């Protein structure tokens, strides 16, 4: 009864308005076309998975323009690094792309080794490759499963997060920590791969492919998922290159640029793997490229583990590599080196070096200028997120809000790397 009354009331309002407008039904589309809505997407929005703001101008459901504001978690890493000895900069790199910290750590160590001219033994290089590829898998798993969550599929996320947890357990076995790993040292690893770590790794390598297959079968040809991601946020190869895209996002656009192949570091040239590329750089392509990269990373880990050479796990560089703690108590030289390294009394050579690694999101570069002191004179991080996120406001124009969320998620923008 009450409903009927309310409806009658509404009808009355419409009829009255119709009369006022000379018989025309009240608002036409034209009347609203000038009316834009301003929408704050972020800084704390659950779907942005990080702290960044986009001020969107919306025409109904369509996005007219987006203005990104970043810097909410800027921690002045480049400035802080100018006051820290090299080994204290590693924890800063952890906190850039915190989904794949080991890659950042190793990239930094390799930069310093390049400056110092230290050659790392093969075993350490292979262990690094294993850890870096594990990190890449963890990074891509998060990105792709969160993309699933954003399209409404929560299950896949839970499946693969179990596996990410196992990767973190392997990290724990290797370096003692899980998220911000601070793994390895300048000159190699801080300790050898323990039998427990190798056991965990082998067990995980056996179990993970089945989970990954399940994840792929849930998404890759899923009608609902494909409707949400195919042809959403495409970017052409030319545009992507002009915007400085690297990593999976560039490869999804069809450019096969991968630092691991172009400028091999840490013995990547010893392994056989393929670089997956997409065709039109849309969200679906980015998703598929990341999935395929997980399989390629598994290939690399398997090869590295099978071919893992014997030998030392760190370089013979007493000026830069901390001696074992037992030796510090018994051995004069070890005590001296320990003291000098910890107090930062060892000067680096003068020089400037650029080194880049293939991070989870693309070319992660370290540009280090040393004036011969114990700290860098200037350290610049080329953060792939920072560079490609500027294309976002271009990519969302004309799409709907739900597409904008999916595009953001598929680009894998990590706030820590974005803001440094």
């Amino acid at each position, binding site marked *: 009864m009450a409903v009927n009354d309310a409806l009658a009331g509404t009808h009355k309002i419409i009829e009255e308005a119709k009369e006022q407008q000379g018989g025309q039904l009240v608002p036409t589309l034209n009347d609203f076309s000038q009316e834009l809505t301003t929408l704050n997407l972020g800084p704390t929005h659950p779907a942005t998975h990080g702290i960044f703001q986009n001020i969107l101008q919306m025409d109904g459901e369509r996005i007219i323009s987006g203005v990104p504001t970043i810097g909410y978690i800027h921690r002045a890493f480049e400035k802080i690094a100018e006051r820290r000895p090299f080994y204290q900069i590693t924890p800063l790199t952890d906190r850039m792309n915190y989904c794949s910290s080991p890659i950042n750590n190793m990239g930094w160590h390799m930069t310093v080794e390049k400056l110092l001219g230290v050659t790392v033994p093969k075993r350490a290089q292979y262990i690094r490759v294993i850890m870096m590829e594990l990190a890449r898998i963890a990074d891509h798993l998060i990105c792709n499963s969160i993309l699933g969550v954003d399209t409404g599929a929560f299950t896949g996320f839970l499946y693969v997060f179990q596996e990410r947890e196992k990767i973190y357990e392997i990290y724990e076995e290797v370096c003692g920590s899980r998220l911000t790993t601070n793994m390895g040292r300048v000159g190699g690893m801080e300790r050898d791969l323990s039998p427990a770590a190798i056991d965990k790794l082998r067990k995980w390598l056996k179990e993970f492919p089945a989970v990954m297959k399940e994840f792929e079968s849930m998404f890759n040809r899923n009608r609902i998922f494909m409707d949400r991601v195919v042809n959403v946020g495409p970017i052409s190869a030319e545009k992507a290159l002009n915007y*400085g895209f690297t990593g999976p996002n560039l490869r999804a656009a069809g450019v096969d640029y991968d630092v691991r192949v172009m400028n091999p570091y840490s013995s990547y040239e010893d392994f056989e793997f393929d670089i997956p590329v997409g065709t039109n750089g849309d969200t679906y392509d980015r998703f598929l490229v990341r999935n395929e990269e997980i399989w390629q990373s598994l290939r690399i880990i398997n090869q590295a583990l099978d071919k893992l050479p014997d030998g030392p796990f760190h370089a013979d560089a007493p000026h830069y590599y901390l001696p074992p703690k037992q030796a510090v108590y018994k051995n004069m030289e070890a005590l001296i080196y320990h003291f000098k390294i910890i107090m930062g009394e060892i000067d680096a*050579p003068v020089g400037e070096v650029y080194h880049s690694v293939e991070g989870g999101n693309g070319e992660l570069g370290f540009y280090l200028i040393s004036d011969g002191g114990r700290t860098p004179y200037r350290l*610049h991080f080329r953060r792939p997120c920072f*560079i490609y996120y500027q294309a976002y406001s271009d990519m969302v124009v004309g799409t709907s809000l739900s597409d904008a969320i999916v595009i953001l998620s598929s680009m894998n923008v990590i706030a820590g790397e974005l803001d440094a």
Partner: protein
Amino acid sequence: MADPTKEESPAAQEAAAQDPAAQQNARVLALLHSLFGEATFTDVEEPYGLLTVTTKREHIHNIVAGLQQDETLKFRFLTTMCGIHYPENLNQELGMIYHLHSLVHNIRLRIKIFFPIADPVVPTLTDLYATANWMEREAYDFFGIIFTGHPNLRRILNVEDMDYHPMRKQYPVEDGTREDKTDLFFGR
């Protein structure tokens, strides 16, 4: 340990001439000289195998544009750019450092420009590379370098009402007036 300051013996120099990286750098340098003239580049180095040239700020836009259009080496990827501050270099205090990459031939090139801190004005590269936009905003934010022609030169990582440029060397990381942190033996 490699010491970059050490004088190389003639044998080492000969070995360097055979080195493919050195040959590649010689090729790039020859191209740069032929395109823009030898006088454009004041300083040429190869630290750790990466060709580094120094030029003047009035040439930088020309050089990057010329390299982008050049068909022989195809430097069409701007890897990164960053500012730098050398307070003791009189009238050359501030600098910009550009890293270019030829993805086809896999050659990297570093270009540096220096200019006085009293007149920190540099032409923008945003008309050539869309990616230069935020990199230049970052350099403005950190060092106060003004890019003429930039469409939106605002601070990017720091708050907008900050009244100094924090990466300049006169701003120490820690408060210089604190005395509880000085150490008689190590000066920290």
